[in-house]
């Protein structure tokens, strides 16, 4: 049986083109970028080129890109870094109740350290309200962290409006763009963000590499010390080959973004059409407009997540209940709880399907049929 992978929001396969770009670096350019000899300089050049491509992809300059070990580290670096550096200006932070755990758990940690955190609620479609944010802004607010695209329902937050609102405020603006990068076109200046996190393994790059964009002039207390790397903002021997792979993934995005969005949107339509044809009753969690093309989160009344996922898996469909990091335990989704209230049955009968370049139309049709059969069987 051929398994069909509909969990691209959890992680993506490495693009063959990316592997191809990484191999020569892995094999031939193994020097330590800090070494002054030929091998070191060769490796340094790879880093410099990648940094430039990546900076341009979000309208930033090279100095503003700090490579990290992934999205989790980037989020931590932003929150902890700002909190520790700016605490003399205030100890209040605003974020949302639907962030990824990399942000939420860090915010909770900061609460234990004496910071005060406001978690903005979201409406039924998963959006925060700008007025709400405005009302919660205080003189001692030092950081606002709002994710660009939610990893469970795909909702796109009004980042540019938030950037606009914060223009005249001391608070730095961080956005977790891990799920946005690769699908939305991003310009940090247009958006008015000060800090932005990404992760390569969500865009067909290798695992273990990401970056934090840090607007020039912003000082962060590092989470990791011990060397001059990344302008002293992130010590540790640079992961040259992974950085090269990240660059290759970004270059692919630059060329293919529109095509991918177009394709995923049509997958979405085909998928839902397939379910409807088989008479499956379902509702869409979140908004159907302001969401990314690749993620669709559906509620199947009268079912429960665990039996759905087990049955899907047995029939070769890989989907998920939401964030992979908590999927192991299949707890009720904190995102759906925030949208509908924790007693709503949608928190326990919803599945996230996320499309990607590993899919084709045929697969999407087949999955819709299989999903429909299982749901129908379970609800009959």
């Amino acid at each position, binding site marked *: 049986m051929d*398994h069909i992978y509909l*969990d691209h929001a*959890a*992680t*993506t396969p*490495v693009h063959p083109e990316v*592997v191809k770009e990484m*191999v020569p670096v*892995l094999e031939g350019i*193994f*020097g*330590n970028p*800090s*070494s*002054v*000899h*030929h*091998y*070191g300089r060769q490796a340094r050049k790879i880093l410099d080129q990648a940094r430039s491509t990546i900076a341009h992809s979000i309208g930033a300059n090279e100095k503003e890109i700090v490579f990290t*070990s*992934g999205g*989790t*580290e980037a*989020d*931590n670096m932003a929150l902890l870094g700002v909190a520790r550096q700016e605490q003399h200006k205030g100890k209040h932070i605003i974020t949302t109740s639907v962030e*990824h*755990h*990399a942000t939420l*758990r*860090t915010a909770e940690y900061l609460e234990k350290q004496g910071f005060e955190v406001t978690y903005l609620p979201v409406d039924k479609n998963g959006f925060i309200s700008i007025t709400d944010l405005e009302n919660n802004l205080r003189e001692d607010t030092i950081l606002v962290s709002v994710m660009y695209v939610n990893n469970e329902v795909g909702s796109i937050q009004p980042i540019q409006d938030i950037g606009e609102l914060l223009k005249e405020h001391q608070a730095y603006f961080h956005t977790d763009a891990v799920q946005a990068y690769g699908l939305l076109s991003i310009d940090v200046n247009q958006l008015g963000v000060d800090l932005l996190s990404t*992760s390569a*393994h969500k865009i067909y790059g*290798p*695992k*273990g590499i990401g970056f934090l964009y840090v607007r020039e002039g912003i000082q962060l207390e590092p*989470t*990791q*010390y*011990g*060397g*001059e790397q990344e302008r002293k903002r992130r*010590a*540790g*021997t*640079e*992961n*040259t*080959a*992974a950085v090269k792979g990240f660059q290759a993934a970004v270059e692919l995005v630059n060329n293919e973004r529109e095509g991918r969005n177009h394709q995923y949107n049509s997958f979405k339509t085909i998928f839902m059409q397939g379910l409807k044809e088989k008479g499956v009753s379902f509702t869409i969690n979140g908004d159907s407009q302001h969401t990314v093309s690749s993620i669709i989160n559906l509620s199947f009344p009268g079912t429960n997540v665990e039996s759905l*996922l087990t049955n*899907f*898996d047995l029939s070769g469909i*890989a989907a*998920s209940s939401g*964030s*992979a*990091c*908590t999927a*192991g335990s*299949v707890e009720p989704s904190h995102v759906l709880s925030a949208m509908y209230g924790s007693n709503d049955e949608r928190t326990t009968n919803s599945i996230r399907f996320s499309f990607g370049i590993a899919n084709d139309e045929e697969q999407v049709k087949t999955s819709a049929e299989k999903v429909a059969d299982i749901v129908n069987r379970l609800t009959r």
Partner: protein
Amino acid sequence: MIYLDNSATTSPYPEVLESFRKVSESYYGNPSSIHQFGGEAEKLLHKATKQAANLLKVDSSELIFTSGGTESNNLAIKGIALQHQNRGRHIITTQIEHPSVLEACQALESHGFDVTYLSVDAEGKIDMEQLKNEIRDDTILISVMHVNNELGTIQPIKQIADIVIKHPKLFFHVDHVQGLGKISLDFTHPGIHLCSMSSHKIHGLKGTGLLYIQSGTTLSPLLHGGGQQSSTRPGTENLAGIVAMVKAMRLTFEKQKHGYGHLIKLSDIIRNLLQKDDRIMINTPRDGAPHILNISVPKFKPEVVIHALGKKNIFISTKSACSSKHSDESAVLAACGLGMERTHYGLRISLSYQNTEEEVRQFCKEFKEVLDELNEVMR
């Protein structure tokens, strides 16, 4: 090409690359996902962790994969300090640790911790009596590296661990980044609580490291997020990097069994050939690790020597790569109390099991020629 800068980083073994590629291509699921793809990735992660645990003779639950030696050191030191600060805020380390240890300690100092930096003798060794005397009621952590990255000096880790077990409140962290696969360390010693390792120093890939955390030792994580690796180190696991590291460990441990004598032989050849030249002073002690040889060539600017050797396709280094951009002086040699003529003119030759006798002989020959040529120019 003669690459003698293996303490900065090593070239990955072909088998390591093969593993990395295979896992990248075939096991791309997120180990936390509960479907088939995730399940396969998770199984492989468990298998790799188990293999690493067997190689180190520890339990799988005692190993945490990180992004490298720097993160492992930071996690160990800051993790213990923050978790146990109620018991005391004093830390003991040495003056010649890697910057990832020194700067983590300095950061803690700025947060109100008290750090003692043990001095070392001319060979880079700490004094056990001094160490014993510095232990106070409020000491919570001792961090001492096994093999020094610039000098190759081996610290008496077992003796320190023996002392540590007499102090139930005390944790002991060992930076084993340069020792792994070269100088064995007994991980089962109850007095060793934490130990850092890095993949790219043993022919693995950059971006993966390990931290051994003895069962029962608790620490505060550096990062917060999904529950990966028992929440001690959240973030989607770099499975391909992890499998590659375990492969590199297995291969390196095999080489250590049969090739250790080879390293000693190479080291002796270089020592003997260079010793005859009275322009050259050897800084690494006789009983140091055989893969690192630190020398000083007074009056010859290290960068100039390195550059000249580079033209002949021979690669050695000045100080540790991480601090190459600093001023000329080696902080490690200075801590050894050596004079200016040595501290400003240090060079490091570092070997791997792959280097050959011909290579090191050739290096010695060309090295002397380079000095001769430069001598002409300088005159």
